[in-house]
């Protein structure tokens, strides 16, 4: 992480060239970006995917970018969330409303998933080439495949041309060129829609094909123009929604800044449309490192006054030492959990309450120790603690801290000269630590999406929460919510599920829960052995279920692999979410494997029995950024048939985690976590429990600490 990279920062000045538009960078410039990523990026098209206007293009978006595009014309509104998962692979999740289709009277609300993969990078003569699939999991309204090439001709001019199948072969179509490979490519069968949500590979690149093309010109730094020849016939949309008078589309695109684009277009010779694209890139932090208060300087023993770092001889001075240490850590937003003090060494267990990265909490704790510990203390051991459970023990020498503070390679030096160990030694908790009671009152907003009756609903209210920690590892917590205003209770859709209604009755819970008990639990966290962590939680675990949840996790403190087993026995709670239960009760449990690659990709597999009694597995994949951002997807396959599952066929969704400190710049451990499911049904439903072990423990283990070691001296 301490590599030498020269000149990667931006030019000073406010009007930085907007990369959402064409970047005016000469092809011949050898300025390679980090990780050899190409400089040219596609714009977002009406489908919110990398493209020209309505057609795709071969360039990608910057690696790690999360973009949101809303486009609308002729009653066709597309809302798309797109993530550049790798420098080459882009995925888009789209929620569209299609009005005035000639096949139905009402509006069709459709969810679709698209993939775009850049196969070949642009070279001096060679164009960039990409391949893509549209509408993989939906009902097939936008189903198409394509292969496309793009080339930048001069600085501001680029051309795109490609071959499309399916919907992209609606106009000017001809016999599929792939049919020389096999006769099967000649025909495109009717879409096997069923309940939607399934991948229909049988039709990919089948049937007639057609050509499409586009040309883009960056007229000024902010304004771009595009012209396109579209092969999409809009067979279902016309003539009822609009009339397709021409295959030519034109667009003007204006970039306000790097992250916001607005476009106006004239499509198909008859329709005016508008589009706005916004993007965010986790790698591009707004406050570049954060604006949290400066850390305390290291106090070298040579500079300290004689009395400052004396040895606490009496019980009184020991108590005051503990108080000073606790107060100094508290000033840094860190809680002293416990410590042991020896002549030459000190071990401090701390709880990080402020910093999103443990490495920063370690650095601040180390600085505080140099300012408070007796001068004879040379060996400093620090252990981050969560739920009373110790993480990796980080050992450093005080002499090193004093020497490295202002060295240019301070981060690398401190990492290379510290050692990570399993925390074995038992550290007694500080006097003031237990028992501890905390409570808080805060507002909440719960939105709900994708109901065709009303695609957006929300409730606003107040939440009162409290946590009592009487002893190490023991926690009693509760939370009560009172709705103030909202329309979540207006949802009248009845669940059509043939499975036990473990989740699909969510709107009844919304309707009947006015003042509701979100959770009321007692939990115990413990370490049964080396590399083992355990949890038992009992009570009202979540709004819909109560019971007992137990978990055992095996994870070495220096490993990226973890294995866990969870066993729960629960009963479904009453709709009013007070103290009573309904009749349904069940056992649910899983065996899980977790693995984090160093490159930041995370895999998880859970196999077991879900709340409705179905048995199967969940596969999750996430792209994790070292600053706490996560974007990922999951899918669950169980022994419930697609028909029994109902709409959507199987449980799947996306999830995004945004660290608050990334947004605000101040120190914070809070995160926005969003899970977007196209449909909430009863198959593949897992119990919701607070503080599952893996997520808590991995934060304080070596791999995650080292990833953000750049923050140690911050």
């Amino acid at each position: 992480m301490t590599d030498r990279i020269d000149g990667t920062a931006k030019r000073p000045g406010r009007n930085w060239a907007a990369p959402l538009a064409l970047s005016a960078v000469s092809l011949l410039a050898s300025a390679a970006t980090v990780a050899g990523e190409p400089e040219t990026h596609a714009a977002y098209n009406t489908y919110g995917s990398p493209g020209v206007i309505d057609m795709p293009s071969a360039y990608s978006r910057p690696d790690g970018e999360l973009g949101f595009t809303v486009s609308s014309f002729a009653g066709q509104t597309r809302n798309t969330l797109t993530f550049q998962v790798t420098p080459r692979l882009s995925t888009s999740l789209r929620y569209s409303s299609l009005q005035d289709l000639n096949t139905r009277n009402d509006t069709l609300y459709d969810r679709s998933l698209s993939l775009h993969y850049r196969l070949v990078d642009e070279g001096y003569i060679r164009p960039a080439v990409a391949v893509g699939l549209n509408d993989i999991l939906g009902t097939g309204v936008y189903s198409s495949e394509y292969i496309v090439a793009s080339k930048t001709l001069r600085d501001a001019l680029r051309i795109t041309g490609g071959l499309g199948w399916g919907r992209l072969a609606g106009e000017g179509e001809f016999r599929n060129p792939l049919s020389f490979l096999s006769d099967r490519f000649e025909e495109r069968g009717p879409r096997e829609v069923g309940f939607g949500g399934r991948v229909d590979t049988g039709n990919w690149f089948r049937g007639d094909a057609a050509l499409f093309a586009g040309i883009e010109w960056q007229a000024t730094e902010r304004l771009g123009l595009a012209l396109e020849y579209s092969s999409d016939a809009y067979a279902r949309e016309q003539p009822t929604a609009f009339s397709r008078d021409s295959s030519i589309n034109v667009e003007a695109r204006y970039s306000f800044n790097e992250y916001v684009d607005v476009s106006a277009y004239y499509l198909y010779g008859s329709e005016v449309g508008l589009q706005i694209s916004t993007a965010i890139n986790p790698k591009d932090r707004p406050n570049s490192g954060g604006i949290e208060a400066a850390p305390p300087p290291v106090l070298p023993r040579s500079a300290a006054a004689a009395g400052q770092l004396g040895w606490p001889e009496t019980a009184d001075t020991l108590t005051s030492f503990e108080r000073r240490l606790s107060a100094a850590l508290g000033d840094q937003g860190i809680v002293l959990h416990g410590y042991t003090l020896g002549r030459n060494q000190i071990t401090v267990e701390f709880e990080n309450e402020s910093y999103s990265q443990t490495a920063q909490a370690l650095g601040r704790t180390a600085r505080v120790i140099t300012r408070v510990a007796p001068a004879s203390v040379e060996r400093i051991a620090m252990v981050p603690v969560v739920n009373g459970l110790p993480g990796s023990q980080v050992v450093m020498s005080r002499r090193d801290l004093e020497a490295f503070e202002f060295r240019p390679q301070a981060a690398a030096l401190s990492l290379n000269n510290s050692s990570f160990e399993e925390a074995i030694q038992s550290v007694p908790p500080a006097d003031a630590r237990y028992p501890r009671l905390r409570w808080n009152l805060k507002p909440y907003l719960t939105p709900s999406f994708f109901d065709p009756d009303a695609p957006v609903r929300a409730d606003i209210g107040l939440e009162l929460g409290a946590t009592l920690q009487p002893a190490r590892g023991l926690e009693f917590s509760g939370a009560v919510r009172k709705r103030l205003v909202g329309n979540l209770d207006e949802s009248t859709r009845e669940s059509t599920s043939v499975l036990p209604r473990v989740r699909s009755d969510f709107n009844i819970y919304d309707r009947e829960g006015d003042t509701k008990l979100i959770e009321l639990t007692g939990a115990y966290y413990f370490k049964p052995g080396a590399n083992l962590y355990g949890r038992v939680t009992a009570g009202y675990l979540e709004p819909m279920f109560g019971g007992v949840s137990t978990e055992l996790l095996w994870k070495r403190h220096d490993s990226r692999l973890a294995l866990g087993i969870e066993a729960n026995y629960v009963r479904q709670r009453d709709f009013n979410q007070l103290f009573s239960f309904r009749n349904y009760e069940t056992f649910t449990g899983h065996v899980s494997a977790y693995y984090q690659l160093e490159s930041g990709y995370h895999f998880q597999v859970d196999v077991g029995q879900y709340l409705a009694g179905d048995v199967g597995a969940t596969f999750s994949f996430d792209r994790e950024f070292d600053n706490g951002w996560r974007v990922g997807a999951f899918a669950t396959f169980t022994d419930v048939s697609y028909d029994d599952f109902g709409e959507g066929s199987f449980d799947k969704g996306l999830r995004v985690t945004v660290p608050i400190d990334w947004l605000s710049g101040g120190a914070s451990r809070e995160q926005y976590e969003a899970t977007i499911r196209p449909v909430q049904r009863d198959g593949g439903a897992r119990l919701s429990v607070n503080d599952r072990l893996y997520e808590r423990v991995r934060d304080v283990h070596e791999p995650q600490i080292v990833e953000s070691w750049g923050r140690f001296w911050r």
Partner: protein
Amino acid sequence: MKPTRSLRTLGLATAVFSLCACDLVPTGAVLNGVGSETVSVDSTQPRGRPVLVAVLPSRGARGTLAVTGANQGVVTFQTADGISLSLDDGLLVSTRGLGQDLMSAQAEDARLAVLSRVQGASYPRIHAYLDGINRIRYTTYSCETSTRQQVVEMLSGENRGSTRVEEECSTPERTFTNTYWVTDIGAVIKSRQWISDDLGYVELERL
């Protein structure tokens, strides 16, 4: 002197995350119970009298700093609202609390050349910054000094004779010029030094 938060990003994030099934709790709107204070990051209160004045033109900010620490010849100064600057004999080697902070720097050659008021000295300088995903990135500059005598007006109104040393440092991407006013005994009484692209220059003067 505290830089303001990026409203653009907050608004942007809200726009992006309006399409999510998550509970949104505005941070900062949490009321905590008496006797259950959560700890929060507080700035190390600098003791002693203010000895340094700093102006950050890019933010329109100005503040006074007092000494909070000294280690290996580098002195750390801090404002009351948690911004710190660390100077090695007057040369900036580290900042904190500003955003795109200078994490650390190799400015030993610069220090020798500036304090000795050498004309035409040529040497490298290395700056370390934190990127968006918490990696340390180094940039190496090629620097050259030029000097001339100049009477400089201090904040106190006093005019002092000094040598004005200009240090021009460049890479293919950018160039910056640090200016130091150095007395006969090699003390930097006033300076204008580059922090980072985002922050630009900071102007320092000893009180």
